[in-house]
């Protein structure tokens, strides 16, 4: 029964994909063949008129095959393989994200264990949390004076809040009974933190880490559009400037796929620390 449903869901997914791609293909190729004269604007854009439109799936697929056959080529600043560009972005996300985790998880632990600190820091967290990470960019560029490091800083600042808040919440809501068990066993604070609080709060902490990686991947594309140079965000912007929409659409799909993989990795990790109460 369940197996049957999986099969049917997969089939339905495929049917929807084929329908969507078919509609897309048809809607684009039809007007192009019917159109007679080119407008002045289109003439201005030259022979690229047909390329400047949104390309049909068949063109994108061909383009994707070509790009994926040489993902890591490097022919100068404006011509790098998709794998290389994604690599730059993932590396920046990882750097900012790991730095944030290294700060947010211990700090969240302390905040969660101390009701005093929790209340003292809460107003700052509430004010800083809703700030769009990109709003920090000018300040970061001015202070850090390096575009790549500024992008990492933006990732750092956007991924720190979910991790900090979730860690503090997870630590603060560890069951009193479990803490009492540790107390009656005369465990030291450090030992209690590692043997009771950390495993108890781990699922909540990982939920925060999963939210943070999702936000980081959303933000890196925008950040790289701003700072330029390398990365998938810059690649998208650069191809838009080249009016190479096939590359843009291809990059969009790749961004989605990488984001999905990042999320799946953390979903797997949270499965490892999950417990049933």
């Amino acid at each position, binding site marked *: 029964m369940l197996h049957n449903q999986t099969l049917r869901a997969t089939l339905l997914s495929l049917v929807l994909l084929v329908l969507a791609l078919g509609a897309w293909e048809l809607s684009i190729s039809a007007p192009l063949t019917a159109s007679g004269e080119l407008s002045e604007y289109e003439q201005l854009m030259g022979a690229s008129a047909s390329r400047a439109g949104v390309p049909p799936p068949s063109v994108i697929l061909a383009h994707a095959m070509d790009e994926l056959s040489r993902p890591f080529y490097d022919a100068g600043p404006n011509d790098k393989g998709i794998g290389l560009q994604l690599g730059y972005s993932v590396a920046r996300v990882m750097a900012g994200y790991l730095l944030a985790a290294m700060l947010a998880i211990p700090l969240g632990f302390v905040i969660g264990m101390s009701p005093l600190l929790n209340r003292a820091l809460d107003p700052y967290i509430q004010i800083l949390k809703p700030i769009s990470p990109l709003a920090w960019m000018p300040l970061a560029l001015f202070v850090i004076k390096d575009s790549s490091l500024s992008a990492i800083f933006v990732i750092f600042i956007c991924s720190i809040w979910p991790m900090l808040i979730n860690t503090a919440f997870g630590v603060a809501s560890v*069951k009193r*009974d*479990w803490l*009492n*068990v540790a*107390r*009656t*066993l*005369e*465990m030291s604070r450090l*030992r209690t933190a590692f*043997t*009771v609080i950390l*495993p*108890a709060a781990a699922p909540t902490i990982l939920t925060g880490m999963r939210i943070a990686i999702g936000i980081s991947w959303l933000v890196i594309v925008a950040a790289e559009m701003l700072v330029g140079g390398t990365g998938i965000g810059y690649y998208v912007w650069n191809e838009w400037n080249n009016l190479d929409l096939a590359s843009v659409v291809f990059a969009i799909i790749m961004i989605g796929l990488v984001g999905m993989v990042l999320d799946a990795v953390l979903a797997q990790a949270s499965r490892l*620390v999950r*417990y*049933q*109460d």
Partner: protein
Amino acid sequence: MNRQFLQIESLAKRFPQPGAGEDVTVFDQVSFRMEQGEFICIIGHSGCGKSTILNVLAGLDAASSGSVIMDGREVAGPSLDRGVIFQNHSLLPWLSAFGNVAMAVRARWPKWPRARVREHSQRYLEMVGLKGAENKKPSQLSGGMCQRVGIARAFAIEPKLLLMDEPFGALDALTRGLIQEALLDIWSRTHQTVFMITHDVDEAILLSDRILLMTNGPDARIAESVRVDIDRPRDRAVLHQHPAYYPIRNHLVDFLVNRSRELQGADAPASAPEEAASPRDVNPAPRWRETGPGGSRAVASPA
């Protein structure tokens, strides 16, 4: 004379009342003593402060006034000398049954090698009949099995005093009986001192040397200390045939139904002037011995 192992002197607990200015007194003038190796149950209506007393004895909570002295030293915080079996077992759900016991054993004897910790934990799990279930997580165990892991965990650290908060409250009658027997079995071998909260009159008679009766809260007192004069080992199946059984049981039920309310807030009547604060000692069946042990069958039905 036997030196008192545990002395509880004029314990009181007050909680600040939200809104109202005056604090609410949960219990006051709670004093009693326990001898080494004694098994004491405490009975009283819900909310009278039994768990609060137990938490104070454990050192998890501080009393508003009064003192708890164990082995000549004041109780100021939790200690490995006092094992607690919590009402809701409080196992760590990410650890297996073995892991939960082993964690306590490691905390008690940090220098023990791994093999010794394993052997010791295993022995106590077997003692509560959990051989074969060591590697299961609490969520994969039944409620009664979890409770037994909690018991194994508390016994494994070999505390001088065991504190149990309604340890069998959530269990069905059959499981409850099995665990009670396991508990008596371990206790008769180790002769630890046990303080246990229960709502079950029969359980109290089966297990304890003395039963403390608490009046209703707020402002509760320990009104009486009822001696259970029944030889051990006690057999659950024929306990109700013992001539002391019904007198004790009737006394307890009468207390719970009528007098726990009437005595609320009243100062406990003193059994001797020099121990003004101690609860009155009561023995509802002092004369059964006069008929001799053989009389137990003759007086089976109290008519």
